[in-house]
C-alpha cells in the first residue's frame, strides 16, 4: 500500500466529532435493529436518507464506507476480490470496491441490509446494487431520476418531469412501508426534513464563511464533513455536529484566522476526492495554498438552493434531486462552478479526472476553457483514480501541485 500524504489533525476541533458521530450512528443502528426491529437500508449517492428516516430505518451510504476503508489503506484487497468475481477493471472503481467489501461476506463495515434503494444517477449506480441485492436476498427499489434538460438560466423545470419523480417517491414510500411494516408517519417525515434543513443550512453558512480571506475552513475538514451530508441528512445528531463545525469556523473567521497562516492561493477542487489520500490537502497547505472548496458535496446538498420544504416534502425533495449539479446539461455544472470561482475568490482549479467516473468526468475541457476565459483562472487536470490506490504515486502528484502553484505565481 502506497503511503499517502502525511497529515496533521483537523483544522477544526469539531471535525473530529464526525468520526465519533459515524461510529455512534452504526452502534445506534445495530442496537435499534436488535431491540426494536429497526431496518437497515443500503443506498448509493443521490438517494433518500431523509425520507427513510421517517421510518424506523437506519440508512447507510455504501460508497462512504468504501471511502473509509480506502482512507485506512484497506481497500485494495476488496478491489482484487471483485475483479476476481468478474467485475471489470475498466468500470467504476468506487462501485467495484463496494461490491468487493459487500460481497466479501465479512460484515466488513456495515450491518447487513434489509433493503436497498438507488437512483439511476449514473450508469454504474443502476446496475451495481443488483449482485448485492441478490446476495442478501433483500428487496431492491431503483428509482429513475429524470434528467434535467433545463439550463440553469433557462425556464422552470417542466411539471411533468417533477411529477414523474414524485410518483416514484410515492412508490418509494410504499416500498418502505412494506419492508418495515410501518405506515408513513407525516410528523416523523416532517421532523426528518426539518433536521435535514438544519444540516443543509449550516452547510450553506460554512460555504459562505469560505468566502472569507483567509478561508477559515477547507481541505480535509470539508472532505470529512461531507460524510455527514452523504449519510446523516435528517438525523438530529448529524445536524448538531454540522452546526458545531459551522460555529467553530465562524469563530475562526471572526478572529481573521485561516486554514493556513499565510494564505497565498485559493484552490477549487473539482471531481471526486482521492479517498486513499485524504491528507493531500495538507500538502497544498504546506505551500500556502488552501483547498477552499470541493464540489462533491453538491451531490448531497446543493449550495445554491436545494433546501427541502417540510410543508411540501415530496415535491421539494423531487426538485432537490432533479436540480443537483451533475444531473442534466453541463451548463448547470458550469454555472455553479462559475459562481464558486467568483464568490470564493478562487485562484486555481484542480480537476480530479478519475478515469472510471463518467458522471463527474467529461467536463474537463469545457470548464478549463470557460474558467480561463472568464476569470483568467487556470485549471490543472490530474488523472488519478479516486478509490484504487494500486498505481498511486504521491510524489508525482505533489510535484504537479508544486508545478501548478508556481505557475499561479
Amino acid at each position, binding site marked *: 500500500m502506497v503511503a499517502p500524504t502525511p497529515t496533521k489533525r483537523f483544522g477544526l476541533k469539531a471535525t473530529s466529532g464526525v468520526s465519533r458521530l459515524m461510529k455512534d450512528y452504526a452502534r445506534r443502528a445495530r442496537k435499534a435493529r436488535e431491540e426494536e426491529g429497526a431496518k437497515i437500508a443500503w443506498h448509493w449517492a443521490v438517494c433518500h436518507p431523509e425520507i427513510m428516516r421517517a421510518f424506523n430505518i437506519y440508512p447507510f451510504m455504501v460508497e462512504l464506507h468504501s471511502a473509509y476503508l480506502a482512507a485506512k489503506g484497506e481497500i485494495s484487497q476488496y478491489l482484487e476480490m471483485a475483479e476476481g468475481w468478474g467485475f471489470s477493471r475498466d468500470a467504476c472503481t468506487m462501485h467495484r470496491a463496494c461490491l468487493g467489501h459487500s460481497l466479501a461476506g465479512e460484515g466488513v463495515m456495515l450491518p447487513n441490509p434489509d433493503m436497498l434503494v438507488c437512483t439511476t444517477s449514473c450508469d454504474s449506480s443502476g446496475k451495481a446494487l443488483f449482485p448485492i441485492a441478490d446476495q442478501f436476498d433483500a428487496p431492491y427499489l431503483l428509482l429513475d431520476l429524470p434528467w434535467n434538460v433545463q439550463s440553469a438560466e433557462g425556464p422552470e423545470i417542466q411539471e411533468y418531469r417533477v411529477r414523474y419523480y414524485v410518483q416514484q417517491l410515492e412508490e418509494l414510500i410504499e416500498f418502505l412501508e412494506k419492508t418495515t411494516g410501518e405506515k408513513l408517519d407525516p410528523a416523523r417525515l416532517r421532523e426528518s426534513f426539518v433536521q435535514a434543513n438544519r444540516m443543509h443550512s449550516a452547510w450553506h453558512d460554512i460555504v459562505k464563511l469560505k468566502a472569507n480571506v483567509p478561508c477559515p475552513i477547507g481541505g480535509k475538514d470539508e472532505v470529512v464533513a461531507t460524510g455527514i451530508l452523504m449519510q446523516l441528512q435528517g438525523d438530529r445528531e448529524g445536524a448538531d455536529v454540522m452546526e458545531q463545525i459551522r460555529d467553530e469556523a465562524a469563530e475562526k473567521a471572526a478572529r481573521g484566522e485561516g486554514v493556513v497562516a499565510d494564505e497565498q492561493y485559493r484552490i477549487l477542487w473539482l471531481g471526486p476526492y482521492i479517498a486513499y489520500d485524504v491528507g493531500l490537502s495538507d500538502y497544498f497547505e504546506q505551500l500556502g495554498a488552501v483547498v477552499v472548496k470541493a464540489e462533491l458535496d453538491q451531490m448531497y446538498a446543493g449550495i445554491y438552493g436545494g433546501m427541502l420544504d417540510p410543508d411540501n416534502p415530496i415535491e421539494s425533495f423531487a426538485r432537490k434531486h432533479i436540480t443537483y449539479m451533475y444531473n442534466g446539461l453541463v451548463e448547470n455544472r458550469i454555472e455553479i462552478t462559475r459562481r464558486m470561482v467568483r464568490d470564493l475568490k478562487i485562484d486555481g482549479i484542480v480537476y480530479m479526472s478519475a478515469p472510471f467516473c463518467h458522471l463527474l468526468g467529461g467536463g474537463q*475541457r469545457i470548464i478549463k476553457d470557460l474558467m*480561463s476565459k472568464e476569470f483568467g483562472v*487556470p485549471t490543472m487536470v490530474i*488523472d488519478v483514480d479516486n478509490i484504487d490506490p494500486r498505481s498511486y*504515486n504521491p510524489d*508525482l502528484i505533489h*510535484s504537479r501541485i508544486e*508545478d501548478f502553484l*508556481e*505557475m499561479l505565481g
Partner: protein
Amino acid sequence: MLAAGIDVGATSAKAVVLSDGQIVGQASLVTGEEASVAARLVLEEALKMAGASLSDVGAIIATGIGKGSVDVATRSKSEVICLGKGAAWLFPETRTVIDIGAESSKVLRLNDNGGVDDFASNDKCASGTGVFLEAAAKILEVKLEQLAELSLAAANKAPISGMCAVFAESEIVSHVHTDTPKGDIVAGVHEAIAGRVSSVVNRVNPQASVLMCGGVARNAGMVRALELKIGFDMIVPDNPERVAAVGAALIASDMLARGTR
C-alpha cells in the same frame, strides 16, 4: 561564481553550469542511482567540462521528480517552471513547449514574457512516453538510435491503435509475426505516440512557435510524426533533454544576481 541546474528524472539526470549567463558546462547521465548520488555525478561531469569544481558554484537549483533528494541543491524548483524558463531563454519565440520524457509527457504554453500560462501532462499512460519507445526497440531488437532512420525511410505505417501500451506492445509483436517491415512498425509506433501526445498538446490551445524537448526529441522520426500530427513545425534544441536543467541553472543564476539564497 557559477550557477548550476540539476534535473533528476525517472531514468536519467542532467546538469547545466552557467557563468555570466553563458553555458560553460553540461552533461546527461542515464542512471539508476539514487537521486542525490545521480545529481552529484552529473554535476561533476558538467563541472569537469567547465573546468571548475563544486566550490566555484554559488547556487544550485534542483528540479525533476527526484529534486527533493538532491542534497547539494540550494533550493528546488518546479519542473514546469524550469522547462518554460529554459525553452524561452534558448528560443525566445517559443510559445508552446512539448516535453516527452521517459515516463511522462508535458505540454506548456508560454506567454510573451516567457512565463507559463497553462500546462497539461500525461503522467499515467506509458504509450505517450519514452518507455514505450524503449519497449518497442527491445521487441524489434534494434537500438533506440536506429528508430529515427527506420521510420523516416519507411513506406508505410503499421497500424498500432491501442491506447494502452500493453495492448500496443502485443500489436507490435503481431506485426513482427506477420513479417511487417521493421521501418513500418517503427513508423506506426511513432504515429501512436504522436496521437497520444497530440491530445495533450491540444488541451492547451497550442500556438507557434512550438519547441520539443526531452530525450525523445533526439529521435527525428518521432519529431516528424508529431509535427505532422499537430500541424506545427517544431524547434528542437541541441541536447533537448537538458532544457529543464538550463532553466534551473538560469533560476540559480538569478538568485546569485539578486544576492538571495
